């Protein structure tokens, strides 16, 4: 069981959340169809790291906010949570994961 610390509701069971996915992907500018590679990268390509992963979860059975989570994909340990605009990696600077 993962306990996700929702910035609005506090620590909650992960069954209340819906997994959204990789939080590092940025949508290309609206209407920008000139850069196919940017869209390919946004829609399909993933870093898929073994270790620290910045991801989004939606608190579907709570406040319905999107929550950013910094989690270790090898141990499932949740290192930090915040709002989607927060930069969790910076917050946890100095943290290196050895695989």
């Amino acid at each position, binding site marked *: *069981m*993962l306990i996700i610390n929702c910035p609005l509701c506090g620590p909650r*069971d*992960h*069954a209340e959340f819906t*997994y959204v*996915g*990789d939080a590092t992907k940025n949508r290309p500018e609206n209407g920008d169809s000139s850069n*196919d590679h940017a869209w*390919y*990268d946004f*829609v*399909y*390509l*993933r*870093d*898929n*790291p*073994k270790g620290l*992963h910045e*991801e989004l979860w939606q608190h579907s059975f709570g406040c319905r906010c999107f929550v950013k989570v910094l*989690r270790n*994909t*090898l*141990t*499932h340990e949740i290192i930090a949570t915040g709002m989607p605009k927060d930069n969790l990696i910076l917050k946890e600077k100095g943290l290196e994961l050895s*695989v």
Partner: protein
Amino acid sequence: MAKYSIFNIIKNAFNEDKNWARAWRDPEPKKSYDVIIIGAGGHGLASAFYLAKNHGIRNIAVLEKGYLGGGNTGRNTTIVRSNYMLDENAHFYEKSLQLWEQLSSELNYNVMFSQRGVLNLAHTDSQIDAITRRGNTMRLNGIDAELLDEKQIRKLMPYLDFSNDVRFPIKGGLLQRRGGTARHDAVAWGLARAADSLGVDIIQNCEVIGFEETGNKITVVKTSRGNFNCGKVGFAVAGNTGHLASLINLKLPIESHVLQAFVSEPLKPMIDHVVTFGAGHFYISQSDKGGLVFGGDIDMYNSYAQKGNLPLIEEVVTAGLAMIPSLSRLRITRHWGGVMDMSMDGSPIIGKSPIDNLYLNCGWCYGGFKATPGSGWVFAHTIANDEPHRLNKGLNLERFKKGRMVDERGAGPFPNRH
């Protein structure tokens, strides 16, 4: 390598089975190989076997970070079928099923392939329409499929819940009689023994830690047991594909997710087929030892951990009970997790990569086990000829760039929904 036969068994029985030779060597690695396959699971070993057998390439190493068959080959629910609708998948999986049908004699090793039939249940009129369409497409492709109504299913599988006042009543099902199960460990062992006898070096406890590149080619594979020069490199590492690709700065349309599977305490024969629930994600069969082997959805979030979470177990079992209420008094004796390489369209990627001498065999999602011999067959062809076989032409990496998805479920580019 001594051929296994009934005479061999009788002869060795007189010596209390003390004189059996080991099934494959444990060789010291050489400095250089024509082809290095990374990952000694079913797919890696099958690729090496067919490279040696069909294409005459003998200087091959299969590198394995743990022990052979210790990854997803030993962690699945052993289901084999070819009931796909889209052309790219249908012909490939059908070839694989045909290879399964002769695999035991080809390897001189009993992989216990049992064609007990795979039934997909349908619970609504629209699901009946969908399986009818899929079944018709399969038959047009020369693959066996039978549409069963509720009465016919009741006869085959009396233990299912046929009451009409349930949320998901059984309306019919699509049966592929040639589908079934195989003994997963035997597949790894049989392929290892056969590949080894053709001169393939299987090197265990040998983790790949990096690559050296010259131009657009991999020249050296660095491992925990030394560096090897290589002609060509093939990835067959399932859930670890993303990690291995990151060592050469390659990004792929793949996410790793954990999938759990379960075995119950052993029972007398009860479930004679493989049955899948149509209203949730649940599939079940009975092993030769009597345990019910079943599984459901992945845990839904990225993971490289070979362990899962309790809420998902509850979800899987809920679906199971809706289908077979009598499971409620059973105890689960074992459960495990494997790391799935979930691709963005739910279909595998098997073919060339952006690097000249690197070949990819990944993106198997839930379905890698049934593809084992077929995957080895086409992957060996692709490596030997530097060109895909006609059966894996459509399963290339470029399809994502062009938006030409092979999306059997129509779920879109969300790896955890396939």
